[in-house]
């Protein structure tokens, strides 16, 4: 736990934050984030924990106790990509983490990144997906009714819908976002999506300064690929959120650049990179830490450390715009540490 002189003498208190480096390139990109945060004198001390699935005799999956305790104590965490072993009988790690900490709202901003040109860079993308993260189609309740006929249950509850709607409107207010559109298929799924919309409307009534409307999910798909600049905050149930947030990540250049945050009960907030473990990049240390870093910046802003976040963001955007020291996935040749060092150089000025 190295603390720079500047940090020690700073009168701002030191925040302890949990770090799950994860698998594959996870530990390497986590190192970059720590290095960059240090360069920016971010008053954080990291509490690192390993996360892996533990299959209990009763068939449930859990994660190590020290990882759980750390989050419950610190409330704030940053998570790298994690591998889920296939066919070992346990539920995915991401799902286990979501359930353990009651992570009910997934926030996925998608903003065009300078230096990363996509067909949508010209009009620019700057939207945020708010996804209900506990229920919906991901209830995991399926059964074979008779051979050859399978039933899958989508669960929508008033409480979960209200929780994510409340978070979405508060977020919009806190971040100066003026428009929220709820995406749904209530023409087809009248009761379930209907209940979701009902809760959105109730919460919307309490935020008259925010412009609220509703749109069919398929209309949204049609419209966003024609003109993404018309979309601001989008609020939706689980499955739609999963699909749509990957769509918006694609608009800005892919999952390697997309940050994400998860809100849980009792003020828990875990930020994560949503890309994979990229095992093939581990040996040469060529992973791209941008997604994890951007998630870290979301975390800093959540913690009120806005000026440090802005300072780091400026350095990252400058590095990306110059396109001189950037990683392979976005067209460069730099390694992960080289890219991180360049950002640190820019921060130190």
């Amino acid at each position, binding site marked *: 736990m190295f603390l720079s002189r500047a940090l020690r003498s700073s009168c701002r208190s030191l925040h302890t934050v949990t770090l799950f480096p994860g698998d594959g390139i996870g530990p390497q990109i986590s190192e970059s984030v720590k290095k960059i945060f240090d360069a920016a004198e971010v008053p954080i001390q990291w509490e690192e924990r390993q996360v892996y699935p533990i299959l209990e005799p009763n068939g449930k999956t859990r994660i190590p106790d020290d990882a759980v305790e750390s989050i419950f104590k610190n409330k704030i965490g940053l998570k790298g990509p994690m591998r889920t072993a296939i066919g070992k009988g346990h539920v995915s790690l991401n799902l286990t983490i979501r359930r353990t900490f009651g992570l009910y709202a997934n926030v996925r901003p998608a903003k065009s990144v300078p230096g990363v040109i996509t067909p949508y860079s010209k009009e620019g993308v700057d939207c945020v997906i708010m996804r209900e993260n506990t229920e919906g*189609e991901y209830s995991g309740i399926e059964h074979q009714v008779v051979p050859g006929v399978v*039933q*899958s249950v989508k*669960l929508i509850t008033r409480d979960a819908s209200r929780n994510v709607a409340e978070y979405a409107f508060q977020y919009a207010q806190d971040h100066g976002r003026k428009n929220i559109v709820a995406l749904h298929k209530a023409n*087809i799924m009248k009761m379930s999506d209907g209940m979701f919309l009902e809760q959105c409307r109730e919460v919307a009534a309490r935020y008259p300064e925010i412009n609220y409307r509703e749109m069919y999910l398929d209309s949204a*798909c049609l*419209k966003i690929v024609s003109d993404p600049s018309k979309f601001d905050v989008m609020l939706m149930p689980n499955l739609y959120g999963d699909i749509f947030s990957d769509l918006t990540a694609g608009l800005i250049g892919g999952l390697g650049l997309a940050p994400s945050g998860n809100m849980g009960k009792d003020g828990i907030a875990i930020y994560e990179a949503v890309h994979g473990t990229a095992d093939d990049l581990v040996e040469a240390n060529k992973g791209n830490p941008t997604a994890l870093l951007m998630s870290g910046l979301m975390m800093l802003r959540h913690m009120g450390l806005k000026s440090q976040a802005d300072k780091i963001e400026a350095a990252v955007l400058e590095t990306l715009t110059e396109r001189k020291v950037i990683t392979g996935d976005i067209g460069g040749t730099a390694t992960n540490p080289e890219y991180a060092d360049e950002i640190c150089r820019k921060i130190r000025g």
Partner: protein
Amino acid sequence: QSFYLGGRQCSSFSCTSAVPRTKYGGKTTVTLIPGDGVGPELAESVTTIFKEMAVPVEFEKIELNREQMKDEGSFDYAIKSLKRNGVGLKGVINRSADFRHHNLEFRGGLDVYANVVRCMSFEGIQTHHTGIDLIAIRENTEGEYSSLEHESVSGVVESLKIITQEKSMRIAKFAFDYAREHNRKKVTCIHKANIMKLSDGLFKACCKEVSEDYPMIEYEEQIVDNTCQQLVINPQQFDVMVMPNLYGNLVSNLAAGLVGGAGVVPSKSYGENIAVFEPGARHTWMEMKGMYVANPAAMVLSSAFMLKHLQLHEAGDLLIKAVNNVLNKRSCLTIDLGGNASTHDMTKAILSEVEHLA
């Protein structure tokens, strides 16, 4: 009554051959359901064009919009008409006030199980991507659209998604047959079986099983969220895509948006003994009803495919070429294409192109 038995292979698709057709004095009767919103205006475009071209098709027009829906009789009559004629051209019908969802009933009641949307880039339409030519095949009778919902406890709603082996095998076979018939090289199964292991797992397994009977066609599987990402990054990689109901809805709308929108993409839907033609992205655009600003190209192209299905190839091909020319030469631009031409203007432009080509 004289019947025309389609003993010859239908060029559009061989699955629907041997369909009895209602034919009087050389004209085939087809059910026309304009629907809600801008539907009637688009239908008008088609009837005008057919009249000018002297196409031997008689429309049995059935008003089936929100106002008429109160009468159950109208709806049942529409179903009977479609069953009798075997061919229909329709717009989108808004959900009626009494909860019954008519678009669903059409597909379920008539078992119109395969919806085919071909999204091809038009050189005259400015879009973010070019060179797209994909076919989205969607199972249209079950899945998430089973309309089986209940509130088990106050505040808790369960909505059932049904996937059956029978229907999954059927749509998979349809997709591979279609791919083979149209010389397509690859079929991609779109699913979310990592999360919905039993339902999407069953769908995926059926597609895989059917793929083994078509060794000359490449088969792959892709998770739907990755598909949406890939569609906006590199849509040219897709050829034929087969998927359950909801994903089909999203992917066909997304792909339609990529090539120019709801105004230019047609679709064809097939059942055992019936074919229905309608715009590919089903939106009524209620706000613009009566203003005649909607682009009729999608509806006209759908009607052209219908002509080909009825073996009226000359007329069908001529109409398809005319619409493509108008769109590619940018000779008439409705609002969705960046101009301010009206529906009538577009209809006239298509007719004038038809005359020019004939």
